[in-house]
């Protein structure tokens, strides 16, 4: 079985062969790995790669796997970003800034339509008792800033755009 996974916009092609119930041979780039695999439960996997032990939690949905390992998480897309965008692969000419957490807008430091520098603070978002400055990811014109101080925002909400 051949599959492709994308990590950080890079494609990784895997060739998987099941040798025994719990043994796989996997080709990844130029290397071949011999894996023993034990599923502790649906999502908890104990991998033995040529004798070396790795504990991984793999949470999957239709578009991606999130692998938790050694205190970190790795998001592996089942399709590339360009496939997700419908194969257009257009260059992004504007930059949306979205919330990565729910929170409360404490202050707006820059107005819509103004020029901003890269790294310039645009607004202050409070969550878990900390105030975080949300900065512009690039130089440009600030647009789509529709909030006012005191507004509550959810995860993944568009805060503003820099065009």
């Amino acid at each position, binding site marked *: 079985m051949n599959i492709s996974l994308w990590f950080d916009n890079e494609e990784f092609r895997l060739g998987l062969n099941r040798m025994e119930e719990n043994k796989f041979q996997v080709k990844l780039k130029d290397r071949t790995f011999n894996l023993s695999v034990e599923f502790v439960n649906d999502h908890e996997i104990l*991998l033995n790669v040529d004798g070396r032990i*790795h504990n*991984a939690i793999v949470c*999957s949905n239709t578009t991606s796997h999130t692998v938790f390992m*050694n205190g970190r998480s790795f998001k592996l897309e089942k399709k590339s970003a360009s496939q997700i965008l419908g194969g257009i692969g257009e260059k992004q000419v504007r930059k949306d800034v979205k919330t990565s*957490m729910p929170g409360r807008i*404490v202050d707006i430091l820059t107005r819509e339509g103004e020029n901003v520098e890269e790294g310039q603070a645009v607004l202050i978002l409070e969550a878990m008792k*900390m105030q975080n400055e949300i900065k512009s990811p690039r130089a440009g014109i600030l647009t789509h800033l529709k909030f006012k101080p005191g507004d509550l925002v959810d995860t993944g909400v568009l805060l503003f755009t820099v065009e």
Partner: protein
Amino acid sequence: METFPFKKVLIANRGEIAVRVIRACREMGIIPVAVFSDADKKALHVRLAEEAYPLGASSPSESYLNIEKILNIAKKCRAEALHPGYGFLAENPELVKHCEKEGIHFIGPSSRVVKIMGKKTASRAAMLNAGIPIVPGTIEPLLDEKELVYQAEKIGFPVLLKATSGGGGKGLRLVNRKSELISSLKLVRSEAMSSFNDESVYMEKYIEEPHHIEIQILADHFGRVIHLGERECSIQRRYQKVLEETPSPFLDEDTRQKMGQIAVRAAQSVEYRNAGTVEFVVDKNKNFYFLEMNTRLQVEHPVTEMVTGIDLVKCQIEIAAGLPLRCSQEEVRPRGSSLQCRIHAEDPDLDFMPSPGEIIHLRPPSGGLGIRNDTGIYEGFIVPLEYDPLLSKLISWGETREEAILRMLRALSEYQIYGIKTTIPFFKRILHHPKFFKGDYNTHFIADLEKEMDMNGKQDTQIAILAAGVKTYVDNRSEMKQSRRKLSQWKLRGRSDGFSNRF
């Protein structure tokens, strides 16, 4: 098992510290009573308490900061004493006053002392009077922008702007030049208002290459005050403590003793009672200056417990009950070395953005000598957005500092908190750093570290891809099985339908 003066103690807090106090109560034969907000209905401190009562809505002001609600519960359930933990109402003189009025023992000092030490300007003035060295700066809060500029130029840049009621690294700004003064003042005032409901701000000289070192003290009703050594708290990120250790690899025995004696004198000068912490800033020449006194338990109290063997929460409760101190200064004999990592729900790869949410998988480290994990979470718990991001405190002890560090690294390597982002990978970076290992650091350590490339975790990518690959394979196979099963069900139904058609 003698009965203790208190039968029931209400814990006016949440998270790991509420759990910590509940455990101490249970070990003393005291009934621990929890309170909880809507977001905390299933929180660990509720589950481990013996009694628990709701506070209502999740926002702090309607729950853990609501003095009236908390005192009503205390009266209703007949708690003889109240433990405030840290944060929330722990240093609120109003709560203490109300307790004093209602005859409920507040596990902490008198309202008078809480009030003096709660205002940084008042405490600086009090210490100045008692002959304790303080950091150069304003004694009174800053009046206006004019005074701001005047004082800054008088003291000399860089200066620190500090919220008078501040603490825990909130309401604090370093200002390097005149042009940043006014915007910084606004920011500090706003944070101070929202965190402490008090927008007054004062100014201190900024000490270069500073160490942040504090002394733990214990003081009883009989005027006896002892100190339990220091905690090195210089590993800070944006003025928030990240990792603490004892003993400090920076101090020498002479300075340590002097600081201990000064801390005892500071406590005596205000007739302090309770566990308490005197914080100092220490410059590169080991000159030390009083910064503030925390009239409560500190987040980092466990490292002192690990080396002294003394349970500080039990001591607090005993002191509040009017018992004399367990031991004399001579009987305090620290052994070995201890570190604490504050594991936060924050994403170290994304500028430490808060990361609330559900903990889908939790495997805390345990076992072996010298590992302790003070936690407020469990698998399945949803870390609320409303409160601070501290998930757990991982504490290690070793015969030597090196052993404590290596033990901590071992424990961190076992610690699995998945579903949300945590600062565990960041601690591995700190502990692996040669400068940290040598004990050669000051409060700039983290800022310098963040400039370095983080190469950790890169080597795991390949294994993660292999794991996801195998998962895809297995998922596909079980999907195929399912479709086959569906197919056969369909066939079966088709056949039974066929039957029914015949009749």
